[in-house]
């Protein structure tokens, strides 16, 4: 992951950033067919695991010789029930009354995708400038804690309170990520190490604040948890109280637009990309590489921070906890990679993962299918999508002409 290979060595590969790209570009070039087939393939593997968990399938397998029909119908029921539950949990639930109720799962999907998109943007943006931000967890925690602190402690009307809390969160995320950017710029400390370590430091810091009266712990409580957020600091619900979908999703959409502008239209984004693709040339062209690392990490941290804000002020308003990042900081890496670090790609990947998450809860509740299956399906989708030739080979599709 270094970039200081020097001249004379002919074709010795230079720097890393390009590694995030070459193959990825191929993904874009590869058609939608591969994406769809990747999902199918991942679902097939998921099916095998679903079958393993199904008792009916296991018992009927016991007498498959005697009555094979039982087995196959059990297999069919098991798989179709599972994926129906997934669909019902993520998109449209035919079991419920009225369109409003039936479409509710879709709104849940949107709700879950909000923070994934925000954090994915944070990771993806940093990627584009050649920084691998594994620190999503810490950044979300600090951001959530800061937003929660403002939420609980400021006594303001909603028009001031909410923006202030959101801002505090974004700022905290920015500062936490900024440490990695700053150290990289100042001493070359590898951002992978620093962001990993900051995850843990942030966790214990927030834990401490939550265990300390006067800091974040709810007054009178002994649990490491803050008070619930007051009305004036809560992101408004978008579709009324019957739905959980809140303004955090709008925040995500706005962030997609802003990052898109930033990367594709702005001078700052131009510098980010230049540094990410070739820091040597960027430096020779008068771009301050160190400063760029710092700036990109600040913005990336703010974006990831917004994901934390989204959790505390939107999804779970009952108070800050040390677990509030819910693994989103790490999922964001996968989202960003699947979205090829491009804003629209991240939007799509975030929606897909949000849907799988919403559907996963429904599969677990309805069919007792462990949520780990969703993890497996997610990771397989990413792997297959990243290897179009493999998918083509499996489905015996014709080879794409190599560019």
């Amino acid at each position, binding site marked *: 992951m270094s970039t200081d*290979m*020097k*001249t*004379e*060595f*002919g*074709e*010795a590969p*230079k720097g890393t950033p*390009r590694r995030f*790209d070459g193959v990825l570009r191929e993904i874009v070039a590869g058609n939608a067919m591969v994406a769809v087939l990747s999902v199918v393939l991942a679902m097939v593997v998921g099916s095998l695991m679903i079958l393993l968990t199904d008792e009916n399938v296991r018992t009927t397998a016991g007498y498959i010789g005697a009555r094979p029909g039982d087995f196959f119908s059990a297999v069919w029921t098991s798989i179709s029930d599972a994926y129906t539950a997934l669909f019902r949990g993520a998109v449209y639930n035919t079991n419920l009354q009225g369109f409003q109720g039936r479409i509710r799962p879709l709104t849940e999907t949107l709700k879950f995708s909000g923070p994934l998109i925000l954090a994915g943007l944070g990771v993806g943006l940093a990627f584009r400038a050649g920084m691998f931000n594994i620190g999503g967890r810490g950044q979300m925690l600090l951001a959530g804690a800061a937003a929660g602190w403002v939420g609980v402690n400021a006594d303001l009307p909603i028009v001031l309170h909410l923006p202030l809390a959101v801002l505090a969160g974004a700022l905290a995320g920015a500062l936490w990520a900024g440490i990695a950017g700053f150290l990289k710029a100042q001493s070359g400390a590898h951002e992978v190490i620093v962001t990993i370590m900051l995850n843990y430091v942030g966790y214990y810091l927030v834990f401490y604040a939550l265990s300390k009266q006067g800091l974040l712990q709810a007054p009178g409580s002994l649990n490491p948890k803050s008070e619930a957020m007051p009305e004036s600091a809560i992101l408004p619900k978008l579709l009324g109280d019957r739905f959980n979908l809140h303004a955090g999703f709008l925040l995500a959409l706005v962030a997609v637009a802003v990052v898109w*502008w930033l990367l594709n*239209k*702005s*001078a*700052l984004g*131009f*510098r980010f*990309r*230049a540094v990410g*693709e*070739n820091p*040597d*040339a*960027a*430096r*020779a*062209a*008068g*771009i*301050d590489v160190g400063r760029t690392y710092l700036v990109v990490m600040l913005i990336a941290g703010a974006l990831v921070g917004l994901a934390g804000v989204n959790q505390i002020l939107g999804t779970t308003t009952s108070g800050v906890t040390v677990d509030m990042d819910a693994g989103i900081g790490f999922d964001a890496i996968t989202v960003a990679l699947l979205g090829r670090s491009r804003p629209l790609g991240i939007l799509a990947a975030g929606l897909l993962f949000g849907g799988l998450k919403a559907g996963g809860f429904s599969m677990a509740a309805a069919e007792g299918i462990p949520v780990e299956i969703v993890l497996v399906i997610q990771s397989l989708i990413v792997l297959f999508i990243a290897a179009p030739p493999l998918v083509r080979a499996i489905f015996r599709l014709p080879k794409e*002409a*190599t*560019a």
Partner: protein
Amino acid sequence: MTLELRGITKRFGPLVANDRISLTVNEGEILALLGENGAGKSTLMNVLYGLYQADEGEIFLDGAPLKMSGPGDAMAAGIGMVHQHFMLVPVFTVAENVMLGNESTGFAGTLDLDAARQRVREISQRFGFDVDPDALVETLPVGVQQRVEIIKALSRDARVLVFDEPTAVLTPQETDELMEIMRQLRASGTAIVFISHKLREVRAIADRITVIRRGAVVGEASPTATNAELAALMVGRPVELTVHKEPAQPGPDALVVRDLRVTDDAGHSHLDGISFSIARGEVLGVAGVQGNGQTELTEAIMGLQAHVHGSIRLGEHELVGRSVRKILDAGVGFIPEDRQVDGLVGEFTIAENLMLNRSHGKPFVSAGTVRTGFLEDFAQQKLTEYDVRASGIQARASQLSGGNQQKVVVARELSRDLNLLVAAQPTRGVDVGSIEFIHKQVVATRDAGVPVLLVSTELDEIVALSDRIMVLYRGQVVGIVPADTPRETLGLMMAGERPEGGAA
């Protein structure tokens, strides 16, 4: 022994890099391959060496077909290659590089480094090289690296040797030495394929010359042909080989460098108190074997070196201690010596590369936003003006041939108001057609009253373009001499000898 290529065709996707090429090389003979950038010379040699698989055609050694699945087979057949882009592992020592792939081992696969060192010494002795087997390759000057490549090829007792542009990075003396080695090898029966853009060298050493254009053989030429004939054959049109320029009209001194010292992070000194000045409308050429401080000099002017002492004044401005951006804003244009590392962002489009060093304001950026329309018009105009051969302004820089990449850099640097042009190796690896063009641009810049600092390892280029020549040796100025100083004198100066009559 005879090596024969018959009807070799190699395609990269839709591009036909080699189109039914046939060649023969005989024992004790030097065959030169000529062709402009991208003609397909290296590709052909890579096929010969087993690095690429030919799509069609066969290779015969002494009439027997060679089955080649990799370089291993080529080496086994006695084919060796000195690659255009050195195939050396920078962080390995010379001995390690030479033994790689051909290691002698002791107990349990332990490397026998002593044997490798011995082998390096042996070959060095035979050809009069001075190479330390334990030196790290990345710390060696390119000229020495070139020798390591040669030792590597020789250490495997090759009967056919391919030299792909070995002289691009050598000084005249080194080139002469290399020629001598090639003659020695020829005398001992080795068959040699020699690739170079330098017509003088080709004519001096080749027994036969084959010219390739756009992947196909376009003709044979004899070593007695003139440079102009060869160039025309290569490019397919007449080429002006000499630079026409009026005598300089130097104005007042514009760039004044005083007691410039540059050290690296480890404290080693690279420039040891050098002083010189360049007048407006004057080209100062910096000659010297690579690694004698030229790189550090250009980088120090550009603000790219960390530890700089002394003074670099451009008009009113002191440049030392300023950021690169401020220096660029002061009107310094910079053509870096390695376009792929410092000059271009490979993944960026031509248009984006054209605005690379002006991303902070007018004319390409307003209110923090890139003015896409303006940029595209600008890029389109430069593409035409500089005759950049590409599919369009949205083509990625990495997809361009070296000559065209260089044109993009030159276009970018020359399309703003300059107070100084720093050009390092502006034509390295560029074919004669593009060299002609770039040289014209440098002269035009001078004639517009801009001082030019030209660094080149190519003595021809220095002599052709410069008004005065400064020779660097081990971080010090050996002397600053007029452009008509004899080559022999320059050569001696490059080896560190002070010219007669000059005070120390």
